[in-house]
């Protein structure tokens, strides 16, 4: 447990040392979201319609962008070897890294989303649901992403390959997440979508660290 906390602390420290990375993820999120009104035109009816989808896709891409740093640096400088020799189970250390990733790459997006939603003329109620859906959904992104990051470790052309592996697996989260807001707008209630998102999260928390650990062990051989 001590090692788990040490890993979380260290990754947060590294993020703090390289503040730019956290901010670039956030900034990327903002840019992608803001590009749409520019690319599509300013009609607020259209914009309101596409808002949840655009925000979710942007969050998904922003989370993904920061993924290839998740294990790559640790692999290159030998830290991963040390982690796999640690008496603490590797899966626990991996969970620590995933938690740190979410805290630095997922949570800020959740907090920023409502501000960006305002640009699209979303109501306060929709913004609330958007935030809840992101709060449940972004950890799923970090968890699934960890599997992809571990699989592409030390592989040629890893960055793009990673997105190829991970994006299809992100789709359920995207559909339920964006769907929650849309369902609410359509008067159908967001509850169903949100609980499905919660189920995804539970599933991910259970399986993802295990799969990521298996993948890391392969990369280390």
């Amino acid at each position, binding site marked *: 447990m*001590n*090692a788990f*906390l*040490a*890993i979380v*602390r*260290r990754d947060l*420290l*590294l993020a703090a*040392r*390289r503040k730019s990375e956290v901010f670039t993820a956030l900034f990327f999120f903002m840019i992608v979201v803001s590009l749409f009104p520019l690319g599509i035109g300013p009609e607020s009816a259209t914009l309101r319609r596409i808002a949840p989808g655009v925000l979710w896709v942007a969050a998904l891409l922003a989370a993904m962008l920061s993924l290839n740093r998740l294990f790559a*640096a640790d692999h*290159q*400088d*030998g*830290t991963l*070897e*040390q*982690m*796999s*020799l*640690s*008496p*603490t189970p590797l899966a626990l*250390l991996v969970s620590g890294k995933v938690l740190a990733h979410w805290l630095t790459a997922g949570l800020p997006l959740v907090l920023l989303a409502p501000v960006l939603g305002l640009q699209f003329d979303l109501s306060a109620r929709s913004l609330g649901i958007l935030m809840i859906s992101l709060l449940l959904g972004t950890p799923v992104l970090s968890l699934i992403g960890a599997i992809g990051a571990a699989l592409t470790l030390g592989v040629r052309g890893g960055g793009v390959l990673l997105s190829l592996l991970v994006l299809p697996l992100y789709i359920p989260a995207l559909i339920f997440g964006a769907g929650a807001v849309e369902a609410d707008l359509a008067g159908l209630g967001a509850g169903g979508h949100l609980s499905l998102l919660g189920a995804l999260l539970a599933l991910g928390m259970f399986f993802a660290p295990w799969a990521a650990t298996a993948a890391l062990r392969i990369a*280390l*051989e």
Partner: protein
Amino acid sequence: MLRAHGLACDRGDRRLFSAVDLSVSPGEWLQVEGANGAGKTSLLRILAGLAPVAEGLIEWEGRPVAEVRDDYHARLLYLGHAPAIKEDLSALENLHTTAAVAGRPLDEATAMAALRRIGLKGREDLPARVLSQGQKRRVALARLLCSQARLWILDEPFVALDVAAVAQLCSILDDHLSRGGMLIFTSHQAVQLAGTGASLRLGTPPAPREGAA
């Protein structure tokens, strides 16, 4: 004690070595020698359990390593070519993290003392990025000073160190051996260690087949 019988290692489609036997008892060191590419690093990684064993058996305290993996790893310290140093963290922070990952968190005073002894006084708070090549290696080696591990496996620990640091490291290794520790290391330089020890020479790998891809 660590003992291995009939180890073999394949990399790509080459067999690097085979039928390697070795054993290290408390207080003993083993120097693995061989030309570049002979397979020293590969052997050390196999012994540390980082790479799979192609053939042969490794025993720790008389039992196969595969069975007592956790216990073995708890008593092992491995330092490879890559020093596990984060360029963005300071020497001190690096030392704290590696120790915590290895399951033995350090207090501030111990860590500072270790860094001082390894010759990084006044550099404790610089990010590793700006340190010189040899200073980075020293940060990695500072772990040795805080380690309770019985078995140290060190891959070219003397690389990039200046003469004073080499002597310093030798005395650290001697201390470890005199406390009953075990040591396996590689080095292309000649090294004088106290205590009993042996050296294992890996032959030059067979010339590859002409025309093989």
